[in-house]
């Protein structure tokens, strides 16, 4: 089943002064349960592409359908709600709310969604456990390592069982060991929960973990298939 469908997607920055074609005509789909890496040289448009799909930015042209629903023309506030209900995010940094414990950070999304406390508790502990940070549940972010923080962030992204998770260079700030652990855990959750995950990376070893590799250059998709390692 196709979760995301993208048609003639374009994003032009500064159209009136020095136009930058950050995303320059992309057509593609993402199937349910995919584990996809977006790769390409710096400035090729990975972040822009993920932001468009996640509804953080609005496209200059083209359409994005999520579960058949066209999100390209939604208003800002509608998009916030849409993101809350449908999309999980993992960013490169500053993911977690500093004054909240790991547990509270993961629970936060479910609370915004108004889920009952009993459900929240089971789900959060289950996720922290799966991500190997159950023993850190009561710790604040500054008491966690970068890798642990990102694992909590992934747990948070998964908490509401979103339609898909977007992760823009989630491992960029991590050492190679933490990077590998995080990727393995993401892959595990992708298989276990069937969550569609799309992430971007520069890291060769990270892309090798992906099931599908989308190569970008200059705002366009220039390669699409399985990574060589698989």
């Amino acid at each position: 089943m196709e979760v995301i469908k993208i048609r003639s997607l374009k994003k032009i920055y500064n159209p009136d002064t020095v136009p930058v074609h950050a995303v320059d005509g992309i057509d593609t789909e993402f199937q349910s349960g995919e584990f996809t890496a977006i790769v390409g040289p710096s400035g090729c448009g990975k972040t822009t592409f993920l932001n468009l799909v996640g509804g953080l930015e609005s496209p200059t042209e083209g359409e994005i359908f999520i579960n058949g629903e066209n999100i390209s023309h939604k208003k800002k506030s509608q998009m916030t709600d849409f993101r809350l209900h449908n999309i999980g995010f993992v960013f490169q940094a500053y993911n977690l709310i500093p004054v909240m414990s790991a547990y509270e950070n993961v629970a936060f999304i479910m609370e915004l969604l108004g889920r009952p406390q009993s459900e929240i508790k089971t789900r959060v502990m289950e996720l922290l456990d799966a991500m190997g940070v159950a023993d850190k549940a009561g710790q604040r972010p500054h008491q966690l390592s970068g890798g642990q923080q990102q694992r909590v962030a992934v747990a948070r992204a998964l908490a509401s069982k979103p339609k898909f998770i977007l992760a823009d260079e989630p491992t960029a700030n991590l050492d190679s060991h933490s990077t590998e652990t995080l990727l393995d855990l993401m892959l595990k959750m992708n298989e276990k929960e069937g969550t569609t995950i799309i992430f971007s990376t520069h890291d060769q070893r990270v892309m090798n973990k992906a099931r599908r590799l989308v190569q970008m250059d200059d705002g366009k998709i220039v390669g699409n298939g399985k990574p060589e390692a698989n």
Partner: protein
Amino acid sequence: MKKIFILAWRNLWRNKKRTAITLASITFAVIIATFMRGMQLGSYEKMLNDAMRSTSGHLGIMGKDYWDDKSLINSMPIDDELGAILEKNDLVQITIPKITSGCLASFGDATRGVMVLGVDPEKEDFQSGMKNKMLEGEFLNSDHSIVIGKDLAKYLKAGIGDSVVLLGQGYQGVTAAGLYPITGIFSHPLGQLNKRVVYITIPTAEELFFMYGRLSSNSIILHDYTDEDKIVEAIAEKLDTGLYEMKDWRVMNKEILQGIESDNFFGVIMIGILYMVIGFGIFGTILMMTMERRKEFSVMIAIGMKRRKLLSVIIVEAVYMAIIGSILGLILAFPLVLFYHFNPIEFTGDTAELYYQLNMEPILPVSIKPGYMVSQFLVVLVLSLVASTLPLNTILKLDIVKVIRGRQ
């Protein structure tokens, strides 16, 4: 919803030092403002309680048209029932009846226009402390005698035992004329009174003016002037508005009221400036708290937290600061206010003398009316809400993509 309060509370203590400094400044301002205001209001209360006591009274009952035309034709019949009601009312300290009319006073070759005050000697003494102001003789120890000011005595070249002729118009146009011996000479701190005032007893005035059973006015002195409304209410039913009229001190003592109002205005401005400075402090803190958290705010909005919810976190943070700071301030100010209420600041020297002369105690008690303390709290609350509006704007305008991309 509960999360918002928890979140705000924890955020407040992220930078303990800064929050503590902001709280200290609010607390300090509230203490100063409360004390200043307490002193100011205390002085007004004192002025209203005491000054009204020695002048018009807090309320005055008079004939219907008396206020506009203070002639005896507009005097009022004594209403015993009304008098009894006032007598019985615990809020009323005393009622002071008066008959007032202009006359000519002559002795030998000298004649001068004077104000004749027909009074109850004890009550009059209570009101204006006349017995302590006597230079010679006694204050109205008998009917058919007069007590006059020292300057009038000098002008008339009359002394104790000399009989002065009073000539004027009585009730309903009859001629009022009488010959009365001087039994006392007084010296009043308000110089005009020494030149113009002649005291006689009420029975003597009734006789002189042919107005038996009538009064010019009856002033009511309350223990606490703020109970005025209750008295107005209590006698509203009994008061025959066809015959009588009731005036409060605001009407009867416009000058004092105006004095208080302009003094109050400057007091409020002073406190306003104080709070404005504090307001900028709160504003700065909230602005910093907002600006330095732009990254996490952006992530929160990205993952689906509505901006409006974020705003409420900031507002709650501001409200927390206001509540903690002002409550702390009030808690600390209260003993101070209480102490100076029960141990009032005492005037000394000439000021004290003047107060004594005006039949007022030379002290300045600080007000303990809860109203003004509550308003300090409300002012700080409103202030912090206002101070948090600009930071709110930065959240509404926050370009989360730019922040997340690290471009802002």
